[in-house]
Every structure is written in C-alpha cells, then in structure tokens.
C-alpha cells in the first residue's frame, strides 16, 4: 500500500499513458480544471482567510477586506515578539520527537518485517490498537507520573509524550515497506560476517530511505501539531509549544485577531513547506498508515 518506492509510481502510470488521449487539453478538460479549482478554492478558503486576516491592521479587525490590499505586517511583528520563543520550543520538541520515533521504530519495524521472531503478530496487533487509544487517556496518566519525576514543563517530557503518535505510525509504515525488502541482500552480507546491527545500519537503512523520510515527516508533524500533551503536561510560560501559545492567545478577552492569525500562519508553515517539498512522502503517508 505504501507507495514509498519511487519507481512504483512511474511503473503504474506508464501502461495507460498511450491510451488516454483525453488527458490532453481538450475544452472539456479545461472545464473540469475550472470546476476543480473552484472546489479546491472553497475547501481552502479558511486557509486563505487566515492569511488574509494575518495581514490586516492591528485591532479586532472590524473591517477585514476580501483582499489584503494594504498588507500590514504588524500582526507578524507581535506574533514573533509574543510567540517566537514558543515556535522555537515547538521546533525543538518536534525534531526531538521525530528523531526518537525513528530511532525506536526503525529497528522494530525491520525486526517485525524480516526476523521470524515469536510474538510478531501480537506486537503488530498491539501497535495497531495503540493508535486508537484516545490521547486523553495517556495524558491523564502521564500527568500523574510526570509530576513526581519532575518531567512536567520539560522538553524531554514533551518529546517522550509527543512520540506516542509517531512511534506506532512509523513502525507500521516502515514495516509495510520492509516486508517487500529482499531478504537475500542482508543474508548475503550476513554470510560475509556482517552482524545484524551492521547489516541494518549499512544496508537496510540506506535502502529504505524513502520510508524513513515519510515516517520522520509524519512524526514531526504529529509532534508539531500536538496540543493535548502541551495543554496537560506544561503549566507555565517557560516551556510552551506554539499550539498552546495560540490557544492562550485566543483565550484573552479582547482578541487581537491579526496577531492570532499571524501566529496561526506561522504554525502552519512546517505543514505547508513539507507538503510542497515532500509531496511524494506525504501522499505515501496519507494512505499508508490506515490501509496496511
């Protein structure tokens, strides 16, 4: 299901390419494109409205125009002043959670896919189930465990908690890829006296680069987007991810919408950048985690 192998896509589209002349720019095709653009525009209107409002002048934006004809960047200036530190916290936590997810999930995914060890089926089942456990259950218990351990209001505490989504997802998506990995390559290296660990690091990991990237991107996005753990496992302003910063921003009585929306835009940057720069991996992850 995971279309992580880059060759997969081109192979699949190649056979039908010659028999589909309708893909050319016929008048009908143009009409379809027009309707498609309208549909996407409606769906993405809220995103546009966020950007538009972020460029409105300070205040409660009584009269936001339809177009940002006189863009005012003071919203961004205030957003950076108020939330700059929180953005940095989010970045550190999300990068940390992505690395942790890969370090823990990659060897496990490889073992589940390639070693015939007992308990594989049970472990895969538990990983699948774990994705369905409501986050509030985890947060409830983690708060009580973190308090005596001093992990409340700490970056490591948040990294560990935020990886709860990335790790099961990464295990599943990488295992799906590694099941197609030709065992003979590793066997050959093993014959040459290469240990399991060395074979894994120097052969398996480089070859499965694409699925590593997909898993890493999603683990990053899960942690970057996390709100519940931030809400429950931090109490002050010292360590505050931007999602929580945004929430406390809206909570104030006279909301300054232009800086709220500027913060919202800044919080969306990673998602947008990854979507443009890593479209292939995003598409693989979108379906790969759900339908095995």
């Amino acid at each position, binding site marked *: 299901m995971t279309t992580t192998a880059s060759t997969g896509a081109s192979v699949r589209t190649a056979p039908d390419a010659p028999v589909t002349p309708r*893909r050319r*720019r016929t008048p009908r*095709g143009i009409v*379809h*494109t027009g309707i*498609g653009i309208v*549909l*996407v525009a409606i*769906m*993405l209107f*809220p995103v546009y409205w*966020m950007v538009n409002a972020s460029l409105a002048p300070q205040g409660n934006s*009584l009269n936001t125009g339809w177009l940002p004809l006189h863009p005012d960047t003071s919203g961004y200036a205030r957003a950076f002043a108020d939330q700059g530190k929180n953005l940095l916290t989010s970045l550190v936590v999300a990068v940390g959670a992505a690395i942790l997810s890969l370090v823990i*999930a990659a060897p*496990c995914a490889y073992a589940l896919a390639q070693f015939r060890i007992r308990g594989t089926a049970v472990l895969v*089942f538990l*990983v699948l*189930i774990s994705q369905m*456990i*409501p986050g*509030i*259950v*985890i947060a409830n*218990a983690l*708060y*009580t*465990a973190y308090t005596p351990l001093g992990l409340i209001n700490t970056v490591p505490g948040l990294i*560990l908690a935020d*990886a*709860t989504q990335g*790790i099961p997802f990464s*295990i599943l998506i990488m295992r799906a890829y590694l099941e197609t990995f030709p065992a003979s390559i590793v066997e*050959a*290296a093993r*014959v*040459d*006296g*290469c*240990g*399991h660990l060395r074979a894994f690091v120097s052969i398996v990991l480089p070859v499965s680069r694409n699925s590593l990237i997909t898993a890493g991107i999603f683990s990053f*996005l899960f942690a970057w*987007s*996390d709100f*519940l753990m931030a*809400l*429950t496992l931090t109490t002050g302003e010292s360590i505050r991810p931007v*999602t929580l910063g*945004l929430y406390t921003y*809206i909570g104030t009585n006279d909301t300054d919408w232009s800086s*709220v*929306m500027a913060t*919202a835009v800044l*919080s969306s940057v990673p*998602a947008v950048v990854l979507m443009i720069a890593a*479209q292939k991996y*995003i*598409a693989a992850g979108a*379906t790969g985690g*759900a*339908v095995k």
Partner: protein
Amino acid sequence: MTSLDSPALAATRPADGRSPAAVSRPRRRGRSGDGALVRYAFIAPAVLYLLLFYGYPIVKNVVMSFQAYDFSTFFNGRAPFVGLDNYASALSNPIFLKALANTGLFTVGSIIGQFIIGLGLSLYFRRHFPLSGVLRSLLLLPWLLPMIVSAAVWRWILEQDNGVLNRVLEGTGLISEPIGWLTSSDTALVAVIMVNIWLGIPFNVALLYSGLQAIPEELYEAGQLDGATGWKSFRHITLPLLRPVVSVVLLLGVIYTIKVLDLIIGLTGGGPANATQTLATRSYELSFLEFDFGQGAALSNVLILIALLFSVVYLRANARAAKNG
C-alpha cells in the same frame, strides 16, 4: 571468499569482511540460534516505550478510576480505594448523558458529512484533467495543519459580529440577525460538526481516491458495452468494489472522531452550557480543571471501551479487505 560476493555487495565487503567476527563465526549456520538476543534487541526499545507510554497509562487509568485521586493526592500521595464511587458519580452526573449524546451526534454527523463530500470530491478528481493531481494534493492541506490552528481560524470565521460567515449570510439576505455560531447553545454543536467535517474531508478523499484507483479501468469499459454508464456504473461497479475501503474509512473515521479534543477545546471549550461537551472533553475537564483524576479516569475508561469496540470491528474489516484485495 571474494568470488562468492555478488557485485552489489562489493562496496560493503572490504570493511566487513576483515572484521574478526567474520573469521570466528561459523558462516551460514543456525539462522535461528545465532543472535536470538540480538534480534530481540531490535524490538526491545519499541516494546519498552509502548509499555511505558501506552501500557502504563491504560493500567494507571483503570487503577485511578477506583481511587479517590484528586488534588490532595499530589501533596500527600494518598489515593484511597473507593470502589465504584467514581463511576457512580461520573456516570450519574447529567453532564455525562449530555456528553454521551453529543459524542454520538458529533461522530455520526461528522462521519456522514465527511464521507459524502469526500466521496464526491474523490470521484470528481478521479478523472484526468490538467492539474488534477496538483489540485487533489492541495486538498490534503487542512489535514496537515495543526488542529488548534484550524480551531483558531474557524473561531474567527464564525465570530458573531465580524466573522466572515455572518457577513456573507447577512449580505446575501439569508439571515437578518448575526448568528452566534459558537456562543449560542442551539448552534454550537452544529458549528463544531461543520468544522470537523471540513477537517475530515482530506482524509476521506485520500483513502477513497486510492480505493478508486484500485478499481481496474477495464471493468468500466466492459460495463460501458453493457450500457452501464453514469449512475449505473457507480451503483453496480464502483460501490461494490469500493465497499471494503468504505468500511475501513468509516470505521477509522469513527475511531478518530470519538477522541477529538483539540478542536472542541479550541472552538468552544465544551460550552456554551455543555452544548458541545463530549466524553473526551468532559474527561479532560474532570481531570485537569476539576482535578478529580479518579472521575476523569473513570470517564476515559468508558471512552477506551467504545474506542476498542470500534477498533476490533475495524481490524476485522481491514483484515477482510486485505484478504479480498
């Protein structure tokens, strides 16, 4: 030794071939016996993590739900056993019934909306036309945004006096008075469902589109010869073949929707007057606002039970889909 190497491995050989392990280890023997510990070491970190961050919380929730675990517990460490008291008080509270009903309405409403619109869009973008691929991947964007960002944006859109939705509705004469979408208990749940439908559409499009891609084109060509076009081909070819994917999409939708918390906290905080309170938000409220972790845990156990019920149904449907497809 060199002659046995495949050319593909030549690059890795020099470094590995000379290691002492290569000399001492009897080669190609005892695939099962050799390094069993090493192989378990590959899964050990993940198992440990899952035990600590999933196993422990689940057990802890069950234990806490039978304890008077509240604010004082954090000071004196005492959490006396109280039997089923937490369940009795959490479940007999009128807010529980309200939250249960809201969870049901929120889930069913969201799923129906997401699925119908998602299916429509994926059928539309299934055709090949210029830019169809680009436009389809743009549709995924709302799904990638942090949920709290979407909540903030929609709060601004749905704002009573200056929100763009009321401005448009008033401008077109559809309403005469601005509606307090999120502040009136009559409309808050509907508004929250609307926003969640918007959030869930990309997920539905992604899965349904890949399901549609898996239906062979020849079937439609054959159907065309038999006069099955348009609605008929949808009814007799698309729907039956898409069924396994549909059940997976719907069940996963339910599993993800019943635990939604960020969005509701961000939009309404469960209010006004509990109009948008769900099991998840109520559990959060009990634990973290009222500091009654015992009752909060009791309620989240109810949530786990519901989630697991649907998870089992989902895993069976998924296994069936994998077998058939």
